[in-house]
């Protein structure tokens, strides 16, 4: 089984990387883009029966820094 975990910066946390990407997109001439936020996708291949609470624990203990980031778990 595969689970995808999306880690994103919390609202209000400055994202210099997203800003730089936005700037580069504008430089390519795509002027309709209003904002860009960059995050991280982590794919986990696992046995059936890995619980949501285990996945959440992985996120809070390691995959996301809860001071600045949120996570979303997408089970396939």
């Amino acid at each position, binding site marked *: 089984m595969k689970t995808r975990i999306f880690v994103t910066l919390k609202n209000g*946390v*400055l994202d*210099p990387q997203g800003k730089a990407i936005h700037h580069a997109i504008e430089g390519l001439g795509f002027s309709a883009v209003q904002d860009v936020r960059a995050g991280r996708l982590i794919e986990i291949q696992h046995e059936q029966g890995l619980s949501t609470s285990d996945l959440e624990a992985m996120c809070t203990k*390691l995959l996301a*820094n809860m*001071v600045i980031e949120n996570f979303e778990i997408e089970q396939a």
Partner: protein
Amino acid sequence: MRAAVIQFPGSNCDRDMVVAIRDITGTETKLVWHRTAELPDGLDLIAIPGGFSYGDYLRSGAMAARSPVMQAVIAAAGRGVPVLGVCNGFQILTEAGLLPGALMRNAGIRFVCRTVALTVENSQSAFTRGYTDGEQVRIPVAHHDGNYFADSDTLDRLEGDGRVAFRYAENVNGSARNIAGVLNAAGNVLGMMPHPERMTEAVHGGSGGRRLFEGLVRQIA
């Protein structure tokens, strides 16, 4: 006095830190590999050096903070042993939960590598008693992720409790309230982005970092 410098895969200021501690304080200083679950007995100082532990994978300091040795460092910090984290060491201490906040990508995106002016905000701690309040010292920085972030309640609390040890005298990396170094509540854990071990003798171009180590000797003696 005995000191340990923790070595992670990707640490690169470990030897500089050993030399600074040994030469300035006259302390027996051991390098301790991160896989070690137990620290040497009777330590008076633990230093987490700068570098790029685990290649900064996931987040700077995130992997190192979960290394076996960090449980022992957290326990020692709880017993009051002074713990100094410099640069990547500061990132590791925040990731390990020993210090509040997080160190994010520099606001200007660029890696910043130069000597900066710092203001000493609290000269009462074990690490800063070699300085005077409000004094300016020059210490080099070299980092990509030094942009200190914490929510405004946490920042107010840190400032109110005198836990901001050093502040940048200028905007270096976008850090909240120009914070360059913070203390834990008990005052025995300091994390700072600037490298005091790189400014300890005349050949370095100054000795602004030297008094941090001299102050530690006075604290522990």
